[in-house]
Structure formats: C-alpha cells, structure tokens
C-alpha cells in the first residue's frame, strides 16, 4: 500500500464527504449541482489513487477508463439539470 495511494485516496474520501454534505444541505439548486460534481470528483480521486502502482510500475488502466466514462456521464447529467433549471426560470419570468 503506497503512501501516495492512501494520501490521495483519503483526500478523495474527504472530498466525497464534503460533496455529500453540501448536496444534502445545499440552499440553491446550483449549489446542489456543484456539490454532486464535487462528490463525483472525490470518488474519482479514490479510483485513480487505487490505479497508481508506484513511480516505476505502469498504472492500472481500468480505473482510468472508469473515471473517463464517469466524467462524461457527470457532465451530461449536469447539462440536463441546468437546462431544467433554465426552463423553470423561463416559466417564472413570463409565468
């Protein structure tokens, strides 16, 4: 178990916790979307930390692929959430 692995992994857990906390407590919709993205980033940190196998050994490519897929999924979900919010505002403006 390399020091870098548990250092970045624990940081990932911390970021996930921060993200979860704010996702539950978020006052506005944007804050909640931000929190969910941060939580995702935290989980990705945990995954990439697992992939790291020391400076000399090539890292495990599977978590890298998972995180790549995760990032794209996260951005599409955020896009849809913001589009929904924009439509709600447009309803309020001329509603």
């Amino acid at each position, binding site marked *: 178990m390399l020091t870098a692995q548990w250092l970045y992994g624990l940081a990932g857990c911390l970021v996930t916790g921060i993200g979860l906390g704010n996702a539950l*407590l978020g006052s506005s919709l*944007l804050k909640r979307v931000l929190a969910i993205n*941060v939580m995702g980033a935290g989980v990705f940190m945990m995954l990439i930390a697992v992939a790291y196998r020391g400076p000399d050994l090539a890292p495990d490519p599977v978590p890298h692929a998972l*995180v790549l897929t995760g990032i794209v999924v996260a951005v*599409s979900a955020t896009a849809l959430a913001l589009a929904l919010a924009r439509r709600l505002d447009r309803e309020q403006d001329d509603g």
Partner: protein
Amino acid sequence: MNSTTLLAFDALLLISTVSLAWASLASSDERRGVILFMAFGLLLAMAWSRLQAPDVALAEAAIGAGLSGALLLSAVRREPVGLSRTGAEPVQNHEKTDYRMTLRWTVTLLCAAFTATLGWAYLSALSFGPHDGLPRAIAANLEASGVSNPVTAVLLNFRAWDTLLELAVLLTAALGILALGKESPAYQPAGVVFEGLIRWLVPLLILTAGYLLWVGAHAPGGAFQAGATLAAAGVVLRLAGRHRIGLPAGIRLRVLMAAGVGVFLLVGLVLMLAGRSFLGYPPALASLLILVIETAAMLAIAATLVLAFAGGRPQTDVLANTAVKLEASTASGPGPARPAGSGGTSNDCIPEKKAC
C-alpha cells in the same frame, strides 16, 4: 525529485485541492463558487497527472473544469434569486433558524461519520494488497486490441459496452435539452480584440482536437478529450456572439448527435452478423474500426456539449434577422470589448433589451 519533496508536493496539492472544494461549496455568492470549482478542477487535473493518469488529466481539464465550469457559469448568468427558488426558501422567523441550525449540525455530523467510515473502509480495502490480475490481462491482450494506449484499449475494446451506453447517456441528455425549448438569447457580439483572438483560437482548437483524436491510439488522448476540445471551439464562438456556432440545424444536427451511438451500434451489429461476437473487432481491422468509432464519438460529444452550452434548440430561422439586428446594434455603439482567454466570462447582457 526525491521522495521527501514529492511528499511535500503531494501534501501541498491535496491540502489546496480539499480546501478549494470546501471553499467553492461554502461560498455564499454562486459565481464565486463556480469559479472556485473550476480552479478545483484544474488542481484535480494536476493531481491526475501526478498519479500517472494523463488521459484522465486531459479529460478533467477539458470537461470537468472547462466545460462544466462554462455550463455552470452560463447558468449563473441569471440573477441568483431565480435559481434559489427551487432550493430552501430564505428563513424569516426565529424558531425556524435554530431548526435550520440543528438540521445543519446533524447533517454535518452525519457526513463526518460517513467520511470516516469511507476512509476506514478504503484503507482496509487497500490493505488487501495490490490486485494486478486485470492489468496483466490487459497487457497480455493489448496488441490484439488494435491500439497501444491501454486506456483507449479498455475504453474502446475491452469495455466497449460501457462506452456505448455512456454515449447513449450523452444522447439522452442532448434530447432532453432539445425537448426543453429554444436556446437562450445570444451574447453581445465580440469586440475587436476578442474577434482577433478567435480568428487564431478556433482553428487551433480544431487542429488540437484532430491531433488528440489521432494520437489517442498510442498516447494519452482519444475521443472524449478531442470532443471536449472541439466543444471548446464552439463555446468560444458562442461567447463571441456568433450564431453560426458550427452547429447545423434540423436533421443534420440530429445526425451529428446520434453519430456516436449510431456508428458504434452499426459496427457491433455488422460484426455480429459476420459471425463474430458483438463488438469483437477482428485484430486486423481493430485499429481502423476504433478510429472510425472514435471520430463519430468525438463529433457526438462536441455537438452535445455545445448544444448544452447554447441551452436549447438552435434557432435557424431566427438566425437571419437577429444577426442583422445585432450588426445594426454594433454600428450604433460598440459593446464593451471583453478580454477573452481569461477562462471566466463576464456577463454584461443588456437588461433593457432583455437579452438576458
């Protein structure tokens, strides 16, 4: 770089990353939160490259920090009160506040406990020792996969099913945005300096996207990073007030959006009908097929992300007359030129023309 300095770098990087994450979520002003989030994304990209994950670093910088940040900023463009209505209403009387406080404290304690258990489980998971079964299998099958970059091999060959469904997720998001209505009003047309910058920046972005796509086979890069860079070109064009942001309209837009899933599916089905398993590329054709699929995926990702930034169905018919009206308005008085390249975008939409 001996280990102590490396350790110091790691510690510094992690402390700043975590504190940025905290700051971005704790800040009361939403725009400040978003900008801090973008900074957090960039630092994260640095962390990935430190952990020898260049592909992910590229994607994080381009999509995680760049495009997500752009989307969030364009969402903040409205006056903040519009968005908070969907959240908890501002609290007026007294006993409600201390109810808010107790709720806040319980949730924070819960999250602290959650983080502790997560950390404890994570450490005990790491203590199970390294698992090199999968990496060895990938290394063994790498040359049969048609590409030499292991991440692209996993993405496009070994776990191609995940990527197919992920492109379907992207398509769903795009269709959802299209169904929600027209695109939001355009930005102020670009000033002279920004105009000049665009003439250099956009072709450069397109070239880089092509390079990233091609290099993905044997070095960090690939469809997602290329798609994001292409989308960046579209975003810059839209910020410059252009309507023709490279997005076709009508059937051509739909073809572009469905390109990723469509080509992937076509290749899979053709291979299945030819007797091989679904998405089981023949070693000889593997690299060609992967390149074809990656090109289609890049186009789909770029189209979807630009569409998301535009905010809805591109207005083709409206295009003609608004462009004319915009030209007229710039003739009457040039809008304030905005420095491009700063990553952040100031939102000086003109209230009286209800352009916001």
